[in-house]
Every structure is written in structure tokens, then in C-alpha cells.
């Protein structure tokens, strides 16, 4: 029976080749876009590579300060003192890293000024994230303790600043401070990893940063194993209650959350103060947007399918006259549509891979690296099936309801 359906489907497609081609093109275009988006999201929320340990660490970039009796509210990035005093001692944490956000610095070289992005980090940063070291070494605890003026560059920046020369040992001036290159790492683009230059947190013009509860830093907190994460998150929220403010008249209550990548995005985008950052809501929004996106192409397909089914009304009439039930007819028609969608999906996957490859090369998002893994493929398949069923069901149901006599006459 299945083979019969396959054969019929093939004949139907071949009967009107241009039609089928249009249908297919529509499907492929939609699926390529959806799959590219899925791959990008998958790589952002569940990364492998440099932030591969994401399932066992959380990050914190904002803290909320309020007053129990006043209306003032401040949402800001963390100061080093906060991280040092309240986060580093957490029991469930194996490592706590502090990092600034990438900031634009001017690099002064002989006759040339370049703008690069620099991050200030401590040594734990390099232990939590898995950078690929191309040459030299990364910043260690000793560098931070001594406040050494050393720097790690990524490959592109090293090439840009010192073309054709050996990188290690080179000196450059950033915003007036002189640093020495001690290591070169591979280019990376991710939430915590993205930067052109890394320098120790203590290599700043002034050491006042250590005394500030508010500052331009974020924290990465890693547990010993992924199962410890819930306990860690709870401990982080508890730690907020112990925060002592410098001026309790201004603010006296603090709240912060350790977030997974997904929760981080949802908390920022939705301005959430829930414990999980309303991560579920963000996912729901994404799914709804994808369905909406599919709506127009699905509408197209429904239109085209309805017309095509009208053409086959005599075939359908005959099947009905010889005993096919409505259910069997719907199944047949939906199957044909799903088949076309699967073919489109396969082409779409190849297309998505091509688009991602082009995206990586074009530099629109610098240092982008997207890995297509089985999970992405699985999501792609799911999307294709949903699409196929959605656009096949309505026309199929419409046609199956036709009385055989009308179908055989060719009217509708």
C-alpha cells in the first residue's frame, strides 16, 4: 500500500513539473531560513567549543538594587568587590571568574591607530572557558596577582597588529598603557568569549575597582558537575540577601541570579525578575514566531494543494467509489505533501549548511562558528514534518468530504 502511495505521489508530481517545482522552491526557502535560525539559536543556547562547559556553569551580568521604602531602582553590571566578596566564596562553586565586557580601546602603533575590543579577565576565566591556544600561554593567577601588563590576542587581531612578524613578546599601547603579548588564541564568538584582546583585571591604571560594588564586570560561576547547578543557583540567590550596600539610604536590597545561556537571554530581553528568567516564555515566543513565519508559505502550499486536488477529483471519486474511507484519503494526501516537504527539507538542510558557511565567511557576525550537529538536524526534521502536515491537512480534509458522484463529474 505504501509503495502504491509513493508511486501515485511520484506520478502526480511529474504530471505538472513546473507546479511541483514552485511548491518545492517555496518549501526549500522557508526551511532554509528556519534551519539557519535554529542552528544559530542552538549554538547560542547550548554551545560546544569554547563555552562547551555551559551545562555546568551559569553567568551573571546584572544585579538589581532596590530600597524597601523608596521607589529608586537600579539595574547595573557588577563591581569587582561584589564578585570577590559574595560570589567567590560560594560553596557549590568550583570556580568563579570575573570578566569585564568587551570595550573599545585605541591601539597606538607607529603611524597607525586601530580600534579593538578588550576584555579584562582573571585567571579563572581561562579555566572555565576552553580557548584553543595557538601559541604562547594564557593569563594565569600569578599575572593577576602581580598586575602584569601582559595581553592575549586572538589570531585576527595578532595578524592585524603585527602582520608578518612573530607575535609573542610584541609590545603595543592600548589607551596609553603598554602591554606585552604572551599568547595567541583562536578567534571565538560567544557570550563570554567574544573579544579581540584579553588583559588581566589588575592591569588597570587604578586599583580602585576593587572597592566598588557597582562596576563594569560580569561573573561566570562553574559547578563541579551539571547536577549541582540547581543548588548553585539557589545559593546565588541566597547570597544576594547578604549584600551590604555602601549607602543604605539609597539602596538596601540586592537581587541577583545565576543564569544559563537561555535564561540570560530571556532575562535581558524580557526584563524578567523571575527565578528562571522566564526562559520558558522566551522559548514559547521563539516557537510562535517560527510558526508565524511558516504561516505564509503554508498558506501558499494550501492554496496550491487545493487546486491540485481539484484536478484529481475524478481519481479521488473513483477511489471513494471503490471503498476508500475519508481517513485513508486524507492519509494519502497528507503523505504526498509530507513527502514533498521531506525532499524540500533535505535540500533545505544542504542550503542551510551553505548559508551558514557563507555567514561564517562574510564576517557579518565576526568570528562566527556554527556547528551543525544531530540536534539541529533533528529540529530541522521536526519543523519539516510540522510544515508538511500543516499545509496538507486542510486541502486533504476538504477533498475527502466530497461525495463520489460530484468528484467523478469533476465539479466541486
Amino acid at each position, binding site marked *: 500500500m505504501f509503495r502504491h502511495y509513493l508511486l501515485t505521489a511520484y506520478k502526480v508530481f511529474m504530471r505538472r513539473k*513546473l507546479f511541483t517545482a*514552485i511548491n518545492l522552491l517555496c518549501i526549500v526557502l522557508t526551511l532554509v531560513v528556519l534551519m539557519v535560525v535554529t542552528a544559530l539559536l542552538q549554538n547560542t543556547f547550548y554551545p560546544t567549543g569554547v563555552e562547551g562547559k555551559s551545562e555546568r556553569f551559569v553567568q551573571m551580568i546584572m544585579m538589581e538594587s532596590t530600597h524597601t521604602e523608596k521607589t529608586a531602582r537600579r539595574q547595573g553590571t557588577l563591581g569587582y568587590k561584589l564578585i570577590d566578596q559574595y560570589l567567590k566564596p560560594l560553596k557549590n562553586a568550583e570556580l568563579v571568574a570575573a570578566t569585564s565586557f568587551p570595550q573599545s580601546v585605541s591601539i597606538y602603533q607607529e603611524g597607525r591607530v586601530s580600534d579593538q575590543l578588550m576584555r579584562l579577565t582573571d585567571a579563572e576565566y581561562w579555566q572555565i572557558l576552553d580557548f584553543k591556544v595557538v601559541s604562547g600561554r594564557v593569563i594565569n593567577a600569578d599575572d593577576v596577582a602581580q598586575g602584569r601588563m601582559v595581553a592575549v590576542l586572538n589570531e585576527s587581531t595578532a595578524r592585524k597588529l603585527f602582520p608578518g612578524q612573530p607575535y609573542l613578546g610584541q609590545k603595543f599601547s592600548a589607551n*596609553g598603557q603598554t602591554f606585552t603579548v604572551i599568547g595567541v588564541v583562536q578567534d571565538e564568538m560567544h557570550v563570554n568569549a567574544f573579544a579581540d584582546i584579553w588583559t588581566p583585571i589588575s592591569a588597570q591604571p*587604578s586599583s580602585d*575597582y576593587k572597592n566598588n560594588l557597582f562596576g563594569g564586570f560580569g561573573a561566570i560561576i562553574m559547578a563541579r558537575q551539571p547536577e549541582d547547578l540547581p543548588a548553585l543557583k539557589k545559593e546565588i540567590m541566597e547570597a544576594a540577601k547578604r549584600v551590604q550596600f555602601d549607602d543604605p539610604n539609597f539602596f538596601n536590597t540586592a537581587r541577583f541570579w545565576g543564569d544559563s545561556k537561555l535564561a540570560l537571554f530571556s532575562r535581558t530581553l524580557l526584563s524578567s525578575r523571575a527565578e528562571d528568567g522566564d526562559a520558558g516564555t522566551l522559548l514559547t515566543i521563539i516557537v510562535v514566531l517560527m510558526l508565524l513565519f511558516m504561516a505564509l508559505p503554508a*498558506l*501558499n502550499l494550501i492554496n496550491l494543494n487545493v*487546486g491540485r486536488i481539484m484536478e484529481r477529483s475524478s481519481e479521488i471519486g473513483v477511489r471513494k467509489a471503490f471503498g476508500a474511507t475519508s481517513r485513508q484519503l486524507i492519509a494519502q494526501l497528507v503523505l504526498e505533501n509530507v513527502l514533498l516537504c521531506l525532499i524540500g527539507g533535505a535540500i533545505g538542510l544542504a542550503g542551510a549548511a551553505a548559508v551558514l558557511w557563507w555567514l561564517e565567511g562574510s564576517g557579518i557576525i565576526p568570528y562566527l562558528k556554527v556547528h551543525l550537529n544531530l540536534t539541529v538536524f533533528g529540529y530541522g526534521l521536526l519543523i519539516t514534518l510540522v510544515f508538511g502536515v500543516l499545509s496538507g491537512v486542510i486541502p486533504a480534509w476538504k477533498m475527502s468530504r466530497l461525495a463520489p458522484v460530484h468528484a467523478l463529474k469533476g465539479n466541486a
Partner: protein
Amino acid sequence: MLRHLLKLIWKRKSRNMMLSLEILLAFLVVFAIVAFGLRYWQLYQLPTGHDWKNQWSVSIRAAQDLPNDPAIYDQLKRGLLDLPEVESVAFSSFGTYEMSRWTEEYTLPDGSHELTIDGMGVSDEYFATMGMRVAQGRFFSSMDDNADAAPAVINRRLADKWFPGKNPIGQLYVQQTRGKSEGQRYRVTGVVEQFRSHGEYMDPVDFMLSRWIPGVGKEAANNIMLKLRPGTPRIFEARLNARLKQIRNDWTYIITTQADARASMLKTQTIPLVILAVIAAFLLVMVAFGLFGVLWQNTTQRIPEIGLRRALGADAGAIYRQIIAEQFLLSTGAMLIALLLLVQLPLTGVFGETLNWAVFGGAAVLSASVIYLLSLLCSLYPGWRAARLSPTQALHYE
């Protein structure tokens, strides 16, 4: 003929519904983008009120809040003017072409007509440094030392709002503090035509430039604005940084040329437009496919009818024209409904000045052209196929 076609389309409206819906959606999306783009173009034509070509800004970053110490600012000013490339030095609370913004509520002295005004504190030299021209009155200076109210320069828009028909120079207004303490009083010394600190794409707002004096008041100025000699190369930044470090070594200086800041800001602001345009292009391609496929299908189904019309004396051209005309009428119908919905926006003023009638009209015309073009392209091939049928073939079509 028109009436005849309309009768046909109306009777077949349920079949045409889905297609009309697609066209409606596409029109709405194209309209949104074109309106966006047109508004940006409109804004770009308006002046920003200040120069940028030879201006550089230095943003001071320190671990603690900057102290408002007049000695330091004097040192900075003299140290910088010492450099031959520097023509003028001024201080401000933040720079132009940055995302920073400071707004607060102000009222007339009697407490009426409260407005939210964008403000920036600037030193006396700011106007010369930024190449600004006063339209009425004068810029503040040391003449205003010991004045009873803080001097301020406001833009024309604000002057017209608060003092329509009157001379704004010398008028007072007050900072709104909601009763806690006496709000700061300001006196208007001058009016500029326009001042937009976020650049060419910023919506016009009410703006005030208040006088900042080194040593007076708690807030220090975090930004240095410089006017440089024309043709100063970018590498001057190294010397500039070195000089600044000489004065205060423990501060960090972020030096940006206004040309770069402007380019970067314009780019950032056009990103949403670009993203929307990409999405719209995708949607249009989908609609084009759908239109083409459905049109072709329709003509196939109507082959007997076409044959009949040929038998009755319609030539191939008439058939071709009919198919295209029907498609145009369908698109027009969908677009009229869309416009009916859209016209509510400027009528109710939901988007305020952003969607003014000029933008609306322009966007409507341009979007309609796009949709008509699409309709034409998609009906060309099916129409041609329909017209090529011989009457006998069509009449006996199985």
C-alpha cells in the same frame, strides 16, 4: 468590461480570499519598511545643529566618580590648548553621537505646562567648539556669572512650545522636583534652531543646553569636546592620549572622532531597517510564488471559459489583458482594505510625528507600485499561456 470583471471577481471571492490575504500581508510589510525608510530620509534632511567633521570627543573613565575640581579642568584645558592641532576645548556631560541621554521634567515658573526635556550640561566654550550658531539672543558666557538663575540655551521647538508668540529670551523655567525641594531655576539666554545629540536619525525633541561651570555644582563633566585643525590625522590620538595621561595618569581616556562616532551610530540605527528589509524580501518572494502558482492554476481551471470567450470573439490580446486586469483588480481590493486599516495610524496619531502624512502618502504610493509590479510579473506567464490556447482546444478541454 470593468464592471464585468468586478462581477466575476466578487462571485469568486471565497476562492480568491487566501490570495487576497497574502497580498494584504505583503503590502503591510512593504509599507512598514518603506515608511520606516522614508521617515529616516525625512529626518536626515533636518539639521543636527552642530558640526562633526573636525570635532573629537574624549570620554573620561575613572574608577570613582569624577570630582568637580576646577583646578583639574583648568589644567586639562590649558594642557590641551597647548597642542598645536587643538583649536578649541570645551566640557560637556556626555558626547554627541552616543547613546547617552538625560531627560528630566520642567515647568514654567507657575508650575504649569510640564514637559520632559532632553538636557546636556556644557561649558561656555561648547558653542564655539561645536560650530553652533545662535538664532536668537546669545550663548551664555562669563557674563552670566552670579546670575539669579542658571543660564540655558534652548531649541526652537521648545521655545515655540512654552513661549509661543512671545520673546523667549529672558524667560524663566523651573526644574520639577515633585515638592521635595526648590527646583533649579533656569533663564533662557539664547535659542538655537535645532539640536539633536543623537545624530541625523534622531526624532526632534525639546532640548536644553545648561551652563556647566568647573567647580560649581556636584556633577563633574565627563566629556571633553575638542575642535581640531582641519586635516589632523587619526594618529594624533596617540599624542593626545599621552598629553592627557600626563595630566592625570590614573584615568582612562576613550577618544573618538565625531566622524567615526557618527558613522557608527548611523550604521547601528539602520540595522533594524536592514533586518526588516530582508524579512520583507523573503515574504515578497513567497507571495510571488504563491501568486504565480495560484494564477496558473486558475487559468488552467478556466480553460473552457477562455475557449468560450474566444469563440465569442475575444482575441488573444483581450484574454491576456483580462487575466492581468483581474489580477490588478484583486490586488487593488486587497490594498484598499490594507490602506483602510493603516490610515487609522496617522489619524489617531499613534506614532506621532514619526508617521506623518508625507511619510504615509509616500509609503502608500511606493508600496502599491511594488505590489502592482509583483502582480504584473506573476500574471505574465499564465496570461500568455491562456491567450495561446486555440478555441477548439479550449472548448473540448478534458
